């Protein structure tokens, strides 16, 4: 290939599946490679992964709508993924045209697509960064341009906490963000749990070992501790479909199959 050498992406591994692209596939998107699709199909055999994704994405929307109701107009979305249906800025700007959103992800495909999507959107931007570096993110000019840390912020960590291993101390990480936020800020978070289907989840851990984003599911207790220093709003930390469902019947008779706990909390 005559000119390809300069185009071969650095730091992008198309062989090794990434969580962002797997999630995109599970939601019906087209921005993924064969390896991502294969991994997703393996997951589907172990866990109701399509339902998990759909229910998580729907939680994200309800959480953002709730935060808007609570008067939040600026959002920092950590691990935002490939823009697909129901992106945070679309939800927020529909409710409040002055709302501002900064997306953060470390996956190049996710960032490239976000950049394209946001080109014409002055109130939203995307930053390529590792969420384990809160100081760098919070100081980044792209973030500072749109977000005022002296006012309440909606911090979103939806469907990402399981990517942070215990060794990187997710509890301390959330605390570092928390300390930088103004009172009245909210945290919306969802994460994989062992509690419902330990065997299926163990299989998923194994499957994700062969990806760029190994996962670390946690118990209810462990995920609850991520909210230390925040005050959970009703109904607390629950399976995603149970978090303020739009319709009672949406919950179904097996909310636990979502395999993710979700909660929204306020910094006092």
């Amino acid at each position: 290939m005559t000119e390809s050498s300069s185009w071969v992406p650095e730091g992008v591994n198309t062989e090794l599946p990434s969580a962002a692209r797997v999630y995109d596939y599970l939601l019906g998107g087209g921005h993924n490679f064969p390896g991502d699709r294969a991994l997703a199909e393996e997951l589907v055999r172990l866990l109701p992964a399509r339902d998990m994704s759909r229910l998580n994405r729907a939680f994200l929307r309800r959480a953002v709508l709730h935060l808007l109701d609570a008067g939040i107009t600026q959002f920092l979305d950590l691990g935002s993924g490939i823009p697909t249906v129901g992106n945070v800025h679309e939800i927020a700007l529909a409710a409040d045209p002055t709302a501002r959103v900064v997306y953060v992800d470390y996956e190049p495909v996710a960032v490239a697509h976000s950049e394209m999507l946001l080109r014409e959107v002055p109130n939203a931007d995307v930053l390529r960064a590792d969420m384990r570096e809160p100081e760098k993110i919070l100081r980044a000019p792209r973030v500072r341009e749109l977000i005022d840390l002296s006012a309440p912020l909606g911090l979103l960590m939806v469907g990402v906490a399981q990517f942070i291993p215990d060794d990187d101390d997710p509890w301390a990480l959330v605390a570092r963000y928390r300390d930088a936020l103004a009172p009245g800020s909210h945290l919306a978070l969802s994460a994989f749990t062992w509690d419902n289907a330990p065997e299926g989840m163990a299989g998923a851990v194994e499957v994700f070992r062969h990806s760029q984003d190994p996962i670390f599911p946690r118990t209810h207790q462990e995920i609850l501790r991520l909210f230390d220093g925040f005050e959970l709003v009703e109904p607390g930390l629950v399976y995603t479909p149970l978090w303020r469902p739009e319709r009672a019947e949406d919950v179904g008779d097996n909310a636990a199959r979502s395999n993710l706990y979700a909660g929204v909390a306020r910094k006092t």
Partner: protein
Amino acid sequence: MDRAELAIRWAAALTQVAYVARDRDVIERELADLLGALVACLRADGPDEATGVGRALAESGFHQPVCVRVSIDVLSSGLPRLTEVDDATRLPGVLAALAAGFADATRRRLFAEQQDLRDALVHARNTVERDLRASEARFGEVFTTSALGMVISDLGGGVARANEALEEMLGYKPGTLFRKRLDDLFHPQDRAYLRTRYDELADGVGHQLDERTRFLRADGETQWVRVAVSVLRDRDDLPDHHVTMVQDISDLHLLEHHISHQGTHDPLTGLPNRQAFVGRLEEALGTGQEVSVLHLGLDDFAVTNDGIGRAAGDHLLREVAARLTQLLGEQPGIVARLAGDEFAMMLEHPPGGLDVGGVATEINDVLSEPTYVDGQGIAAWATIAVVSLPSADTKPDELLRATDIALRKLKQRGRRQWCVVDPVQNQLYREQYRLAATIPGAWENGELGLELRPVVALAERTVVATEALLRWEHPEYGVLGPQRCAELLLDTGLSVLLGHWVLGQAAAAVEGSALYLELSAEQVADPDLVMQVRRVLGESGLDADRLELGMPVCSLSIGDGVAEDNLGVLVDLGVRTVLTDFGHTRGDLACLEDLPIHSVRMSGAVVSRVVRPDPAALFTRSVAGLVPMVREVGISVLVPGISTEEQAKWWMGVGADLGTGPLFS
């Protein structure tokens, strides 16, 4: 049920499988509007308006293929139950149109999405960013990620880079396409034109290039594609490359034969489609030309498609198209793909006349030569119905309907058959259609009713159950019997609705006797079957184990599993199950092992073949061997159509235990 209720059900079903970022109320309102449009189609507007509904559905965010499946499930059972719908005869047409519209919108959406990607690519390349390397990384990323074929070529047409999607689409090994020249990928007939357009683009004089055209595959076959081309510029803003995005428009959808009515050509094979064929035939008949029409149905195409794979099926269809085209050669006429596995050929008669039988034979000769997919040889055979020299006032659609029925009948007899549909028969078919079209009215006027027949234990001659069948007391033609009714129903799409109705009527009519009822293949595969049976059992008070439902072997041995699921649930309910049309092949025995079956009903064709059994004949011996095998595993054997004592004795002798027919009435 009213519209709002159905909209709620529809929304619930859709949001179970796909995520759309809107409030449920909003979704329900949108769907209720769509229902309004569908109801209008059912009433008057005709099915075509329903394509708009399909399109709207996909555009509203429910664009995954599973959404159309879910919608058709909900609508096919829900729409007829709407209080405002009193005539559901248009339902199948309306749903097909909906599916077509959906497929069309999905295709557009995919294209638009990929256009975004292409833009991303151009954007990343053209924007001079601080971090050039990062931008190139992203460029490469988008390039490889794309599900669409992409090729970057220099202004002279040398391929600088092609992605795997394109290589795969055109059948090249990964990494081999960049040595080619872009123009070599163009179809010879479109080559000069495309090159001019590319040059114009580079010179900045042409407008956007975005159209349907043909490429050549590595194996020399034609590939229908849609291309969109843009220009890459270097840092001095001078054009230096073309980026071509290539979409395979042959391989898009489940329902492509539904979509094909939007153009005159079938995207998969490049042949004229049904509409084009009908137009051409109309023209020929109108100008008094002497023609013959051969209507071909591929035999066992599903075996290739489901067994080896969709890609192999597509390959085979293209191959058939190519061979038929070659066979037609320079002769005046036309070859078309009518639908799924159906093709048609119209030939103008040369002055000396035409040997249509010879053509039919020749067709099967050229088709039977295997073609290779991944080293596997696959071949096609066709069953062919021929109409020779139709009169000038023949309507093409009617002609094709007649050949269609003839095909179906022929296929029941075996493969590689051909027959001439003669004008008298043709006349009969036409009558048949006219008659079939009046069924809905007859139903409403109470002309349809039941015929009850005893099912008898052959040894004791006691009545063990009552069989209920549909009959029609026609004001003009007198009573049309069950056989005739079944034939007519085949053409109406009403068999499910009427079948359910018969079930309800019969359960009320048998009063305490056990009821035996044969379901049509469509009914067996109807997702609503179990609910209907439950309802009928509840309303009539008939015990489940006094209901015996017959299901055709063919409906259970293939398909998507709905029929098998229905069977399983019915057995759980306590209903007794009968496999009907049994005994054509020994493969039928496999069904008995795999499925919970209580009885089998021998195929009528088998019974009539052994009316006067010749003990030495292979067929007779095979039947005589089959029955005991079935009985051995505790399954009853019911023999239909017994009209003589002799017949009854013979069947009893080989082990059959139940019978129906004139002898017992």
